């Protein structure tokens, strides 16, 4: 690990000023320190956000939706019964996230901004496309965990976060603050459109601090659920995960969202798939049609074809679950 300096910011504005080229914000450090030890990230300075007031905790105001501070430890969301009443999908997603130790230290903002787990990307000796090289080593290589869709060119990584699909399914937004001001974007737009072939995973700009996640009132009215397939029962990133959410009226699914993790470089949504089920009562057949549309463009690599049937099955189960609840 390269030597670095450490500073503690006391306000968002100060943090934003400090995060210049060569600096990185530090939340729980569970991803960032791993990247540094592995030689993938080597910031000269860490700007600890942990001392900033007002970024920790969540609140719910009638009519104003739900707000979650970016520095809230994952475990606090997972264990809050009150939050589980407003947005049960968060607990479902977090229960299978990483391990309890990591959820104790890891934060909401850090989880959404974590880097991908591609084993070529995480090996400092491999100069892959995402790290400025010319090729994706997974494409012809060991790609059983890689993307089946949305890769276009460049990079076959998959979006790693469990929280992201869950929150996107409820139309979450994030607030990004820098010395230039504050903007609010859809969480889905925090992830770089793979078609742009950007060598960044997130659309966060230098100096921007993620301060808050908001779930709008309309999002809270959806019933959601999260399913995750893993290679062991815990401490494992998703092979495939799915978040679904919809309002259920008169037995019909309304305004649905289906978001996949583990299959594409970003949390994966296809509007046509959602439109297919919007306004219809659940049936296995309907779910299958939606899943087919969701994965219509899937182009698996040599070793990850299994993700297609797996994703389709998880979509079917998740929809069945919210319809039955």
């Amino acid at each position, binding site marked *: *690990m390269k030597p670095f300096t450490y500073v503690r910011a006391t306000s968002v504005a100060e943090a934003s000023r400090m995060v210049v080229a060569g600096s990185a914000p530090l939340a729980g450090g569970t991803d960032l320190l791993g990247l540094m030890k592995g030689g993938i990230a080597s910031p000269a300075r860490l700007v600890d956000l942990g001392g900033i007031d007002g970024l920790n905790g969540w609140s719910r105001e009638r009519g104003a939706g739900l707000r979650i501070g970016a520095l809230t430890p994952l475990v606090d969301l997972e264990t809050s019964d009150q939050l589980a009443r407003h947005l049960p999908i968060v607990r479902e997603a977090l229960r299978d996230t990483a391990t309890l130790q990591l959820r104790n230290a890891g934060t909401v903002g850090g989880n959404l901004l974590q880097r991908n*787990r591609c*084993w*070529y990307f995480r*090996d400092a*000796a*491999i100069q892959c496309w995402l790290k400025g090289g010319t090729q994706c*080593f997974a494409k012809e*290589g*060991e790609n*059983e965990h890689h993307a089946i869709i949305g890769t276009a060119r460049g990079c076959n990584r998959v979006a790693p976060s469990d929280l992201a699909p869950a929150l996107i399914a409820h139309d979450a937004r994030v607030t990004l603050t820098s010395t230039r001001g504050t903007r609010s974007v859809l969480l889905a737009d925090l992830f770089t459109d793979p078609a742009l072939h950007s060598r960044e995973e997130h659309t966060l700009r230098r100096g921007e601090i993620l301060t808050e996640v908001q779930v709008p009132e309309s999002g809270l009215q959806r019933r959601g659920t999260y399913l995750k*397939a893993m*290679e*062991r*029962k*815990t*401490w*494992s990133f998703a*092979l495939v995960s799915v978040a679904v959410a919809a309002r259920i009226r008169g037995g019909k699914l309304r305004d649905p969202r289906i978001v996949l993790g583990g299959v594409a470089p970003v949390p994966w949504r296809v509007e046509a798939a959602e439109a297919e089920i919007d306004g219809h009562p659940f049936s296995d057949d309907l779910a299958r049609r939606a899943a087919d549309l969701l994965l219509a463009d899937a182009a698996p690599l040599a*070793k*990850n*074809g*299994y993700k297609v*049937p*797996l994703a389709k*099955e*998880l979509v079917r189960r998740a929809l069945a679950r919210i319809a039955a609840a």
Partner: protein
Amino acid sequence: MEQLALVQGDDAEAWAADAVLTIVGRPQRRVEGAAKVTGRARYTHDIRLPGTLHARILRSPHPRARVRHVDASRALALAGVRGVLHRFNTPKTAFRGEETIFREEVRFVGDEVAAVAADTEAIAEAALSLIVVDYEVLPHVVDLEEAIDAASPRIDEKGNVLDADRYERGDVRKEFAAADVVVEGTYRTSTQLHNSLETHGAVAVWDGDQLTVYESTQHVFGVREGLRNALHLPLANIRVLCDHMGGGFGSKGGIGKYTIVAALFAREIGAPVRCVLDRHEENVAAGNRSATLQRVRAAGKDGRITAIAHESWSNVGQARWVADPTGPTKGLYDVPNVLAHAHRVLTNTGSLAAFRAPGYVEGTFALESAIDELADGMGVDPLALRRRHAGSQVDPVSKMRYSLKRLVDCYDIGAEEIGWSRRARGGLRGSAPGLRRGLGMASQLWSGGGTPPAYATVHLNPDGTAVVRIGTQDIGTGTRTVIAQVCAEELGIDVRGVRVEIGDTDAPYAPISAGSLTVASITPAVRLAAKDAREQLLDVASGVLEVGRAELRVEGGAVVSRGARTPIAKVFEDLENYTVIGKGSRMPNPDDIVLKTFGAHFAEVEVDPATGMVVVERVVAVHDVGRIVDPLTARSQVEGGVIQALGFALSEERVVDKPTGRVLTSGLETYKVPTVRDVPRIVVRFVDVPDTVANNVGAKGLGEPPIIPAAAAVANAVANGLGVRIRHLPLTPRRVLDALAAAS
């Protein structure tokens, strides 16, 4: 094989099956348990001697290359760097059949190229990147099946595929022609990494020409021997210590290159040097269980297995030996016609190291899968088919009798416990719609009879407590506790009054803690030493108490005669520091008798065919390993073996990138050992009949038996539940889904 043994004294009569023992055979809390859970137990990693320097190793980034030149000048210029070793400045130091630790041709990504010693680990690490190495990159191959392919680069003059062992009995070809049913399958197992929690490492320090090495090892005497060969020192000048140890699973059988690096630097610089591997190094350069490709054909006729042919290829990396997977095929079942042929395949990957039942885990998976396939083909219950070949009391390979074999008892106990009668062809319905449930079983054969030489001494203190000294080591299995039990039992004192001194080459010799050797090798010597001490005590007591020697015995820390109890301390009261020193040595094994362990595992699984998820719900493990000295530590041994096997069966797999030769799963996040949530209910049972022919304690080893049949039992259960057989471990969701897609 002729065994030459130096015998000292006479053996004791074995404890009979009905002998009344008060300590042996009862659950005993680990004598070192408190030290471990309170963090006081010292491991090699904890050894920090004053002034210690830290060594790190530069490893090859290429799977195969020639080291043409090493320029260490920039590294040496870094403040805090105390020395650099590489192939052009390091004295010849023999290591595992090679002349030097830094080869001219490096043969895998992670092979040792140079080493740095510095004031801190961080400086040493930083210095590594300042060493400039000129490599001539050579063609390589890392994949087992590609290495077999004649079109791949030849990485050794003798070729990539080397014959290892061929065995035949009967006439396999004739029986295949005459059979009713023949099944044939190609089985694959993946490279398993040991992942000992304590990584490999050593700390070396010289005092004049006396070398002391602290090493995390399964064999302090093996390390001493390795140091003698490498450094040409008299044995009296070498002391090796290993107090507590965080696992080895076979991979810590002798010195490593890190040991020699530490010793050389320590001598050159005149300071203690610590060289321990990190997790990544552990998983690229500290050994593994070979990936295998195995072809098994099995023939049946008239309801019996008539012939088995088993051919195997193992990816050994660069190793000079192979963990032959065909052992179980030769010896497990009484089948008249067997052909076994093992090959060693060289690749540019880290070499194998012994890994808990090397070869047997892989081979049992292939053999026991094939037996199930044959049973299916013949339309008989797979357990019933095995029973027909499991009762023989004669070893089919040597044609000699076993000392004791209760494999059929294991079947009876296990079948009852798992509810084998529920098993149905094609599996059972699962706990929810769509889920499938299956039952499977497999048997195990292993040695475990122990071996001489092993020596122990027992010092009886004047207060009636005792110190046992023996040069074994406790690799985490409970060796200390078992020694204390046997000593206390024989001596007639309380277990808490026994201190066990092990892990030191200044103690009398004991063999490697591997291959299920330990208990059966050392406890008979400990018992004899304790017996010697007890007899001397009785001589003294007879004189002091003026009672005939024959009327005295030791019980509960006291000398007892006709109702009178004299505490041992009292006997010695007027004798000042008179010390009784008992000696014992391990007697040779009986001639013309085969000592083996047997067992059977039964597994119940639930499989989700739509997601490929396999959940092992229950494993019943039944073993026939002679007397159980401590049921508590025995149970934990079995649980550990089952869990390690479940990893091999379901989730553990070293993945190597073919073009770069890099291990992609060198961390604990990507290399998936089971977590506590993955562990099913494990029911542990023992036949628990002492093997009185084997040795005076009647115990055999239990290190390897519990890992051998578990993966095979799970694979058979999955095949039973799914109706589709997957011949490639681990059974990840991907393999299950791919196999189901291929089958439909």
